[in-house]
């Protein structure tokens, strides 16, 4: 029998789920195109791709809209990945993955990746506009 005191809306879990679901949508809509073009077609030389050459890559990365796009994409996607991987471990029987320290590690990890992304975007390719 669960303690009555635990019966209250878990706002943290609500927040995690919201970020997870939005990140899932962004990853679902955006990632395949990036992987196909930048990971396969570009390296194979089938089509010209921005990141194949330094000048075109730095040109695109200098655009503030591109920086914003990448920041939002990475932030939400990595929150999605953190949530999913944490629960994947729970499903494998790693009960510790439900603990608060585990939440700190995984969601904190997503925050760290977001901050690193922000730093990379701000320090790479100066804004041209």
């Amino acid at each position, binding site marked *: 029998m669960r303690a009555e005191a635990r019966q209250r809306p878990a706002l943290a879990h609500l927040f995690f789920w919201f970020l997870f*679901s939005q990140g*899932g*949508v962004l*990853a*679902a*809509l*955006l*990632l*395949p*195109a*990036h*992987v*196909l*073009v*930048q*990971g*396969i077609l*570009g*390296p*194979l030389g089938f*089509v*010209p*791709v*921005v*990141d*194949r*050459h*330094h*000048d*075109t*890559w*730095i*040109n*695109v*990365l200098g655009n503030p809209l591109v920086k914003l796009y*990448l920041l939002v994409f*990475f932030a939400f*996607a*990595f929150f*999605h*990945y953190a949530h*999913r*991987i944490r*629960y*994947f471990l729970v*499903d*494998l*029987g790693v009960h510790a993955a439900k603990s608060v320290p585990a939440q700190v590690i995984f969601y904190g990890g997503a925050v760290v*990746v977001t901050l*690193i*992304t922000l730093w*990379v*975007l701000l*320090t*790479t*390719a100066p804004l041209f506009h």
Partner: protein
Amino acid sequence: METQAAPREYRWRMPGNWWTRNRHYFNYMLREFSSVPMALWMLWLLVEIQRAGGAASQYQPHGSPAFIAFSVIVLLFSLYHSVTFLSLAGTILHFKVFDRPVPSRLIVLAMFGMWLVASVVVAFVLVWFAR
């Protein structure tokens, strides 16, 4: 009158290999696992972005056969994620238009439509600005 202790029940134990016992469970675990290759590939992309900050003469994008093979595997996983996630979005989203509930098939169709548009836009930007 004697009272008897309640006979003990047999406690349930979840088998560690539960997800191998059923195709649906296995596919579910595959779906959940897809986050790992997807995250790894995006970290690669971050490295690629970071490399733009280096000297132009030393810039070398990833392109080894191993990397392309890795990308193929990631593509398969990310396609699996997209198909399952966008299909399931039809179950979650529910709203009414003119007091009639929108059928979930229509919502899923809209999601896949958005996926197509987003993919075309992303691919276009990646290729157009490489000229």
